């Protein structure tokens, strides 16, 4: 019961801060709201007994990515958006977004979890440890994707340098 209440509160914060992201005029405020949303998501990860994911969420998302974004916002020194999009554009976009929401909820209400059940229950997470479970999976079953991420990061580094560097 208490857990549900807590969930509701955090969920409300997440949604509200999400809405703030898309309504704040100042990009910095948007960014800060987004960080708040990320923290809420991290909280959910904890509630879902995935503490390692929560840590990564805070460190990578809220820490690295958002810092980068905020840094760029400051670097480019963009303050507020001079003028919003025309109201009918906003209206149409919102209607489409709400349709997405409506349809998603519609089908979620009509479907149940049908996937094959695995072994990872609360007891196992507690006994083995979440980090170890993740680590094992990452370096056995998903070794190849893990290696691909290294290439991906390389491309990102090279790409960022190539695109934004002034002169060689």
């Amino acid at each position, binding site marked *: 019961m208490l857990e549900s209440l807590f969930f509701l509160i955090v969920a409300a914060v997440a949604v509200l801060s999400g809405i703030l992201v898309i309504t704040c005029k100042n990009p910095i405020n948007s960014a800060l709201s987004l960080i708040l949303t990320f923290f809420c998501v991290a909280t959910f990860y904890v509630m879902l007994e995935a503490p390692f994911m929560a840590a990564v969420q805070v460190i990578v998302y809220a820490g690295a990515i958002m810092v980068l974004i905020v840094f760029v916002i400051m670097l480019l020194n963009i303050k507020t958006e001079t003028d919003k999009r025309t109201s009918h554009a906003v209206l*149409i976009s919102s209607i489409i977004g709400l349709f*997405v929401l409506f349809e998603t909820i519609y089908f979620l209400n009509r479907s149940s979890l049908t996937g094959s059940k695995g072994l990872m229950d609360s007891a196992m997470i507690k006994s083995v440890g979440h980090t170890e479970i993740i680590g094992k999976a990452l370096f056995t079953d998903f070794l190849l994707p893990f290696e691909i991420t290294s290439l991906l990061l390389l491309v990102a580094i090279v790409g960022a340098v190539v695109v934004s560097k002034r002169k060689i």
Partner: protein
Amino acid sequence: MFDNVWLIPLFPLIGFLINGLFGKAIKEEKVIGGIGALMVFCSFVVASMTLFKMISLPGHERVHNVTLFTWIKSGTFQADIAFLIDPLSCVMLMVVTGVGFLIHVYSIGYMHGEEGFYRFFAYLNLFTFSMLLLVMGNNLLLMFVGWEGVGLCSYLLIGYYFHKKSAGDAGKKAFVMNRVGDFGFLLGLFTLYWYMGSKHGIWTIQFTELAKHAELYPVGGVVTALTLFFFLGATGKSAQIPLYTWLPDAMEGPTPVSALIHAATMVTAGVYMIGRMNFLFIKAPETMMVVAIIGAATALFAATIGTAQNDIKRVLAYSTVSQLGYMFLAMGVGAFAAGIFHLMTHAFFKACLFLGSGAVIHSMHHALHHAHSHDDPQDMRNMGGLKSKMPMTFLTFLLATIAIAGIPGFAGFFSKDEILWQAFANPHHGTLNFALWGCGAIAAGLTAFYMFRLVFMTFFGDCRINPKCKDHLHESPMVIVFPLIVLAFLSVVGGYIGMPKIIGELLGGIPNYFEHFLAPVFEFSEEYVKSQAHATAHHSLVLEWGLMGVSVVIALVGISIAFVLYIASPSLPAKFTAAFPALHRAVYNKWYIDELYDFLFVNPCKALGNFLWKGFDVVVVDGIVDGVGKSVLGISAALKNLQSGYVHNYALSMALGVVVIIAFYLFR
């Protein structure tokens, strides 16, 4: 047996490669033209050998598939590079290589000094190659390759004088209209392939295979649909209603091109295709009716337009459309052999006519050029009295004209009369037969009229050409005249190999060699028609003789009208008034009769012709084609505007797509 037939298309291909790649470097016109003509001649020799070998074989051994290699193969589907050698393709080979060779020779003289001489010969050889591929291909796909190839060459050659905007436009029009037809061809191909495969497990597009299973095709239904698709392809390529307007415009190309591509060979591809697939068409009575009606209508319709033209080549162009209509009429009434026969004789006399007109234009052009006159060298109103200036051209032209007009004894008579008789007596269309025959007969009269009008206006009467130019008019060189003589000879004697039965019997039992020769190809259709119970309607000999007489009389009437209008009347009044003043009144009356003729016959006809040409042709047909084009371009512009450049709009279209698709799956 026929292992060396692959040489036939190979020679023109070699010619194309030599002229195309090295032509610019060779420079010497005689060498370029010589190579081009020689290669086609080599093909002609091989084709003749093939023909003789074919004749020496008994009837049931006359169909051969010569496979070179497998082209596409996957599972059940197979298409080879393979040639089908049978009487039908032999006839076409002779026409394409024979007439093609003569026109190549002619071009050496005609194109002398033109910019891009090598280009012309390269295209011409490429065309010959594609046409041979079309004719010899043993499956639908290979035929389609040739089909597209000839369209491409036609486009390139129509636009040969690219400096003229009209030439470029005409080329484009021809290409696009042909594509509409090709679309029909491909659909027919796919439908046939799918139907035979899914229904009977026979995944094939090879003609002999398809023919072997001819009894499997149901009557009507899907066969009607697919034959209509094929017929759509034929209307595009062979310039039938409604896709015929490109052909008159195609006269923008050099005259040898008009003779070879737009009279003798390429435009007959549609007829050939129907002949090749006769076993399918015979099973689709509705399609046969459509083919016959379209053919007859085109024959009549184009002939009326022909009466109102003053450009010498345009008259011939409409004449071609009209004669092609005859061939389709023959196909539509099940007289396949007669249609192919007319195809052949038409190739002779129409090529002769075009080349003759080319000689006239050539001569006119030079004369006008010398005199710095800007008169149109193709306008018949600027000609007249050329008989004495160009005697050989005149003679050959006259012979070919007599042949096309259907005067007994000449090639056109035999083939046209056979078609008209079959249109009347065929067992397929019941009461419609009389109308088909009527259309054909009237068109025959009109043909005689406008062709002799052309001859009279061009070669007879006073010379209306600019006096300064008169002395520069002279006969063309031998290289031009020689093909004319050969073709004129063929237009005279070419008909005797296919004499109608009744004439042959009268002359002591001469059989219809041509029909016998082609019999193996149309065997199934013949048998099928015979097996239908109602097919046994018998007509008396008297009726056949009578109809033949009627068609001859109609032709003679047409010629007489032309004679009265363009030869007799201008000179008669003057003579009469000078010699017999008393008869002035009678002369006046004579005039009055002319006026009556004019009023009753010629003017309405001209008006109709003009109306059909300017009204229907230009406004309706072109209008529809243009209209479709314009509306597509309008949609294009609208779609283009959606591409606004704003990321938001793009993202919006994506999100909208997602919403709509999900909604479809949730609420279907």
